[in-house]
C-alpha cells in the first residue's frame, strides 16, 4: 500500500503547521522542498534516537511524526528506515552525491583497530567502517549536528581507558560541528537546532560547540532547589542535592526549564543529582555517582588534570 503524505496526515488528523517555537519556517513541502537529513550511528547506544522519538511540545512540530512528515526528509536512519542492506546504503549514497544535506551524528568515532570495532555497512562486498563513512559524509554536508555526548565529546565509550580509541566527530573529521550533548540529548534541543538551521539562523556556539541559547546557563542557576536546605541522604523530596554530589553547579544545560519527557519530570525533581551529562568531562576521571554525604572521593582528585587534558584533546 502507498498512501500519499496528505492522505497519511488526514488519516491521523495531524497538523502540518511549520512553526517552531515562534520561529517562522519556510514552507516545507515534502518531498521536494525539505532538507534532507542523514543520521549516522556510531559508537553509541541509540538512546538519543529513542529520546528524539519522545518529542512533545505545544508548538509545531508537536511530535516526531510531524518532524518526519513536515520538517525534514530523513533519508537515512537505520533504526527507523524501511530499507535495509544495499537499498539503504544506496539511499544514503544518492543524497551524499548531491551534497548539501544535514548530517546528524549519534555516537562517537572509534579509531582503534583501524576503526573495525564499528562498521557502518557493507558496500559492493566491502565492509566500510563508521570512521570512513563519517569522514566522507562530513565533507559534503551543509551542516553537521552532533546529537548526544558521544558524538559531541566521545562520551562514555571514550571514558578511560578508551578501549576503542573513540573520538568526537570534531576531532575525527576536523570539521566544525554543532554539538548537542546530553546523555541522551533532549529532543527539544535537537529540534531547536534543526529549526534554526532550516531558518538559516546563525547559531551562536560556546567554545565547546554548544548553542549558547541552550547551554549558556548552569543547571544549578536554573534549579528550583537552589537555596533550599541540603539533603543528607537519598530519597528525600524538595532538598538541594549538592551534598549528595550534584554536578548542577558545573553543568551547562537547560534541564530545569526544558524538563524531560513532556515535563513529566527531570533528574533533580526525582531526587537524583545531576550527573553532568552535557559536559565533556562526563564521565571521565571521577565518579558519576557518589556515596551519600561525600563529594568526589580523594582517589579521583589526581585525575582532574587528566580531565582537562582530555577536554582539550577533544
Amino acid at each position: 500500500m502507498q498512501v500519499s503524505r496528505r492522505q497519511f496526515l488526514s488519516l491521523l488528523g495531524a497538523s502540518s503547521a511549520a512553526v517552531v517555537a515562534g520561529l517562522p519556517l519556510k514552507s516545507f513541502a515534502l518531498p521536494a522542498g525539505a532538507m534532507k537529513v542523514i543520521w549516522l550511528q556510531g559508537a553509541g547506544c541509540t538512546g538519543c534516537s529513542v529520546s528524539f522519538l519522545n518529542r512533545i511540545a505545544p508548538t509545531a512540530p508537536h511530535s516526531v511524526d510531524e518532524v518526519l512528515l513536515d520538517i525534514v526528509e530523513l533519508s537515512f536512519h537505520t533504526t527507523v528506515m524501511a530499507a535495509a542492506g544495499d537499498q539503504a546504503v544506496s539511499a544514503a549514497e544518492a543524497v551524499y552525491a548531491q551534497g548539501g544535506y544535514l548530517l546528524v551524528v549519534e555516537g562517537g568515532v572509534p579509531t582503534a583497530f583501524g576503526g573495525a570495532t564499528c562498521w557502518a555497512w557493507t558496500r559492493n562486498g566491502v565492509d566500510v567502517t563508521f570512521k570512513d563513512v563519517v569522514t566522507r559524509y562530513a565533507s559534503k554536508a551543509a551542516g553537521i549536528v552532533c546529537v548526544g555526548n558521544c558524538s559531541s565529546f566521545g562520551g562514555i565509550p571514550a571514558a578511560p581507558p578508551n578501549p576503542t580509541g573513540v573520538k568526537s566527530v570534531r576531532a575525527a573529521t576536523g570539521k566544525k560541528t554543532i554539538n548537542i550533548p546530553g546523555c541522551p540529548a533532549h529532543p527539544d534541543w535537537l529540534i531547536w537546532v534543526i529549526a534554526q538551521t532550516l531558518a538559516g539562523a546563525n547559531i551562536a556556539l560556546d567554545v565547546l560547540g554548544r548553542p549558547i541559547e541552550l547551554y549558556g546557563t548552569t543547571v544549578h542557576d536554573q534549579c528550583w532547589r537552589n537555596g533550599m536546605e541540603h539533603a543528607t541522604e537519598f530519597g528525600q523530596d524538595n532538598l538541594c542535592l549538592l551534598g549528595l554530589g550534584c554536578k548542577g553547579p558545573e553543568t551547562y544545560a537547560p534541564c530545569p526549564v526544558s524538563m524531560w519527557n513532556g515535563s513529566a519530570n527531570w533528574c533533580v525533581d526525582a531526587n537524583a543529582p545531576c550527573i553532568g551529562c552535557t559536559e565533556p568531562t562526563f564521565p571521565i576521571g571521577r565518579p558519576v555517582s557518589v556515596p551519600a554525604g561525600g563529594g568526589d572521593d580523594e582517589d579521583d582528585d589526581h585525575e582532574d588534570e587528566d580531565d582537562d587534558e582530555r577536554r582539550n584533546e577533544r
Partner: protein
Amino acid sequence: MATVKVLDPISRIEGHLKIEVSIDTVRGLQQVVDARATGTLFRGFETILQGRSPLDAPDITQRICGVCPVSHGMAAVVTLDRAAGIAVPENGRILRNLVLAANFIQSHILHFYHLAALDYVDGPNQAPWQPSWKTDKRVSGAAANALVGNYVAALAMRRKAHEMGALFGGRLPHPPTYRAGGITATPRPERIDAYRAYLNELIPFIQNVYLNDVNTVASVYSDYFRIGKGHGNLLAYGVFDLDSTGEEKLLNRGRWVNGRRDVLRVDVGSITEQVRYSWYDDRTANLNPASGVTTPQYPKRGAYSWLKSPRYQSIPYEVGPLARMWVNGDYSNGISVLDRHAARALECLKVAEAAMGWLDEIVPDAPVIAPYEVPDSASAYGLTEAARGALGHWLNIRNGRIENYQVITPTCWNASPRDGNGRRGPLEQALVGTPIKNQAEPIEVLRVIHSFDPCLSCAVHVMRPKKEAQVFTVAMGSGPAACRP
C-alpha cells in the same frame, strides 16, 4: 549453487548487525540454507568500569543500550544490593518495577509498530518509509491504512509509556534514579495518579489496537507460524520481583529444552561464553561470566562477530518475551516468527495490568531507599530481563572498587555466532529453512530477524581483567526450583 547475500546494515533494530545468508533451492523451494550473524560494534564497556566506584555501575551500564537502559540499571542495582546484602525497602522494589514496566511497554509497542510492521505493510510514500521492498506485502487496502495509521498512534503511545516511567525514573531513556539500596524518587500521590492515568490509556491501546494488529498480520501471514523456529530452546532469568526475597516474580525463571516436557531450573553456573568465531582470544573460551575474560583479537582466522556465544551447558538458547511467557505457562502455541510477536504483545498487556496493581501496594511516606555502603570486597551477580530477553551482570569488588564487571545481554544469546561445537546461534538457526520469494528483496529474512527484536549495542565485553580474577561457583540463590509447565 547457493547464492550468498549480504544484508548490511540490518535496519529497524537497535545497533549494528550484518547478516549473511546463503540461498538455494531445496526440494523445489528457494530458501535460506545457511546464515551468519555479525555484531559490528564493540565498545569495551566493562573495561571502562574497571577501577571505578561500584556505585557508577548503574549509570554507566545503562548507556550500553538506549532502548533497554532500565534493565541494565536494574541488573546493576540488584547486583550491588546483593554484593552488600542490602534489603531494599518495599517502595523501592515497587518503584523500580514501575519504571521497568513502563520501559517494557514502550519497547514492545516500538518494536511491533516501528521496527517490525514495515516488513508486512508498505509505509507512506516518502523517506524514511521509502525506498522499501515491495515483495510479499500482503496487508493491503483498508487494513493497511489502519495499520499505518496505528503506526503513528503507537508513536504517541510509546512516548507516553516513557513519560509514565519518567515519573519515578526522573527521565527516560537513562533514568538517573536507580541506585544501590533502592531508588531516589518518592511515590508522591500526584505521580501515582499520573502513572495510573497513563496506564488507563495504554491498557486499552494494547488490548484493542496492538493485539488486534498482531492478529491482522497473523491472519494474512499464517505461514509465519511455521517459519523461524530455530533450536527451540528457551531461557528466562525472570523479572519483576513480587516480594523482597525476589523468589516470586511476575515472570519467573525457567528453561525449556526442545522436545522435553517440563520447564527446567536455571543454574547460573552452567552459563559459559565461547569465542571460537568471535574476535576474542581463544584462550578466553568457555568461561563462566563470574570469571569472564575478554581480550579482543582482530583480525582472527575464522571469526566473524564482536558478539561472543553464550551457551547453557554448551547449548544455544533463545531468550525474549516468548521464552518468558513459555516457561511461565502463559503461552504455548509454538515457536516461530508470529509466536514471538504474539507472546510479546500478550506480555505487554500482562505487565501493564500488573503495574496497575502495584500502584495500590505503594505505602505512602515509607522509605524508598536503604543506606548503602560499598563492601570492601565482594562477588555478586544480578539477573533480570530486558524487553528482548535475559540480562545478567556479574561483579567483583576489590578494595571498594570494581575489579571485574561482565555483562551478558539478551542479543548476545540470540544473535551469537557459532559456538565451539559449530552450532549456530539462535537467530542464525532460525533463519535456516526460511523460504525466499525474491532473492533481490529477501524480506523474509528481515521478518525472522525482527521477530527477535535484536539490540546490538549490547555487543559489549570486558577486556584485560586483573589476572587474579577469582573463579567462584554460583549456586542458584533464588527462583523456583521448577516452574509451572
